[in-house]
């Protein structure tokens, strides 16, 4: 597969995983990400050092991931919203045991069974920890096919480097859409850094234990602060974003993933009409690029957060901005995909300080707290 190829997002992710040295996949089917396990099944069937298991459930698959990671493998699982909810206990354990793992969530409309259309309602679950206890996931949010390839490679490296689970957060559209992609050279599994903590039998060394139980509260607190320090470090080292035409912008739209590319289209159109608008796209949702956004908030009048949900990331934006500029929100939840034209209209009416937006649903926060502009 040399040069550019046209592939759907799920397949791009699968191929990038194989090239990143992923040799274990455990999952359970769910739309809209079935083409990923299907790709892994086909790819691994041709390799003799790789394992694909279609588990009996998402709960089983996340625990198989735990086992494979304990055994030292670069391992991945994937699902979509309801299936990811079922993995929460396992994810909390994996984080607590400081095991590397890559977890893919191709979000669909929710809550509940919802639908299979692209949505962004799982931001909180991904970034604040849907599982119990103090832990974080590194959350990468690709917006383009090429980025899926690049971030997948990055995800496996980060997971091993920090010994922590990493989530790739996409949506049905990211997964189904085909775009031209170029892949990096495959990594040789042998070339990957050795792991001296895995369980592979106590041959010529003391036996090891990998655990998350610390009945002694002092030890449990120690674990909690060790994790907290690790997360601090990650926050400093990893936060990343795309900034598009923000330098002279009076208004910027903040969006990630599919919503961001649509918002970018909106910004593009408005710039043609001379409006000073820009885009801020977090590429890492956790750690959230707060520092950068905080800096921007000093010389920008307002930010419009656009999400395919009723408003989740907007909280992290407000945390970063801390009232230094106006923050308003525009949302299209439930699998509805807004058009660039629609976003352009929303932004220009915000730009011209129109009170409320057509369609969708919107809210805004002035420096003095919270007001609701009603919703569609």
């Amino acid at each position, binding site marked *: 597969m040399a040069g*550019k190829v*046209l592939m*759907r997002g799920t397949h791009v992710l699968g191929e990038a995983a194989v090239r990143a040295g992923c040799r274990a996949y455990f999952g359970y089917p769910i*739309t*809209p990400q079935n083409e990923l396990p299907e790709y892994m099944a086909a790819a691994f069937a041709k390799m003799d050092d790789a394992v694909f298991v279609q588990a009996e459930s998402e709960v089983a698959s996340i625990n198989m991931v735990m086992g494979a990671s304990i055994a030292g493998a670069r391992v991945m699982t994937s699902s979509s919203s309801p299936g990811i909810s079922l993995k929460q206990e396992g994810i909390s354990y994996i984080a607590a045991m400081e095991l590397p793992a890559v977890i893919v969530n191709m979000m669909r409309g929710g809550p509940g069974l919802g639908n*299979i259309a692209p949505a962004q309602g799982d931001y909180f679950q991904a970034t604040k920890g849907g599982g119990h206890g103090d832990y974080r996931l590194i959350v990468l949010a690709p917006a383009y096919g090429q980025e899926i390839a690049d971030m997948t490679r990055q995800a496996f490296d980060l997971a091993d480097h920090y010994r922590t689970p990493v989530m790739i957060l996409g949506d*049905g*559209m990211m997964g*189904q*859409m*085909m*775009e*031209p992609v170029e892949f990096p050279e495959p990594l040789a599994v042998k070339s990957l850094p050795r792991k001296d903590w895995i369980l592979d039998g106590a041959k010529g060394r003391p036996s090891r234990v990998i655990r998350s139980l610390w009945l002694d509260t002092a030890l449990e607190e120690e674990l909690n602060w060790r994790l907290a320090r690790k997360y601090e470090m990650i926050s400093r080292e990893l936060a990343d974003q795309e900034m598009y035409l923000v330098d002279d912008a009076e208004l910027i739209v903040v969006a990630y993933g599919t919503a961001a*590319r*649509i918002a*970018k*289209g*909106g910004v*593009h159109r408005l710039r043609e009409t001379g409006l000073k608008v820009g885009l801020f796209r977090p590429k890492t949702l956790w750690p959230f690029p707060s520092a950068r956004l905080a800096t921007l908030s000093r010389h920008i009048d307002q930010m419009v957060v656009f999400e395919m949900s009723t408003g989740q990331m907007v909280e992290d934006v407000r945390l970063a901005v801390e009232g230094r500029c106006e923050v308003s929100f525009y949302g299209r939840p439930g699998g509805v*995909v807004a*058009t*660039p034209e629609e976003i352009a209209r929303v932004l220009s009416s915000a730009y011209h300080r129109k009170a409320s937006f057509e369609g969708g649903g919107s809210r805004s926060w002035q420096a003095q707290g919270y007001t609701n502009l009603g919703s569609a």
Partner: protein
Amino acid sequence: MSLKIVFSGFGGQGVLMMGYVLAVAGMNEDKHVTFLPAYGAEVRGGTANCTVVVSDEEIASPIASSPEFVVAMNHPSMIKYQNMVKTGGTMFLNSDLISGAPPREDIKVVRVPANSLAHEMGNDRALNMIMLGAVMSTVGIVSEKALAQAVETVLEGKKKSLVEINQKALAKGSQYISSSR
């Protein structure tokens, strides 16, 4: 320059391949392209459709709420999309399966008897490439050469004869348009 095409029809009419070939051709000419197939429950009931965007700039959304071009390979598809086509846009109809026309003055309609032309060629399954050839000779955002190449890429590994048949079908489709001008 940027344009959006929707291809639609029954499953088995090769609708997805039409879009795929076009997208590959666009990619090979270093354009920005996206290809979005309908998926999941939408598909059940045997209808198929996909949206292709070919553009000189980065593509914001792969979805076409009002496409410039719609290709309808059967009657239900015409019904489904006739009101979505952008004013001034064009609707390509497979006249063998579609009698009647969309009730609109503001769009062009091009009729292509894809089934019959395919039958003439002695290859009924080639109707999709015939239609694509016809569409592209009208729209012309990618070169005929690029399309022919794309067919090779898409059918990589398949037998040579099949590739040639499909390339012939592309040609036949565009001839049909020129001759009927």
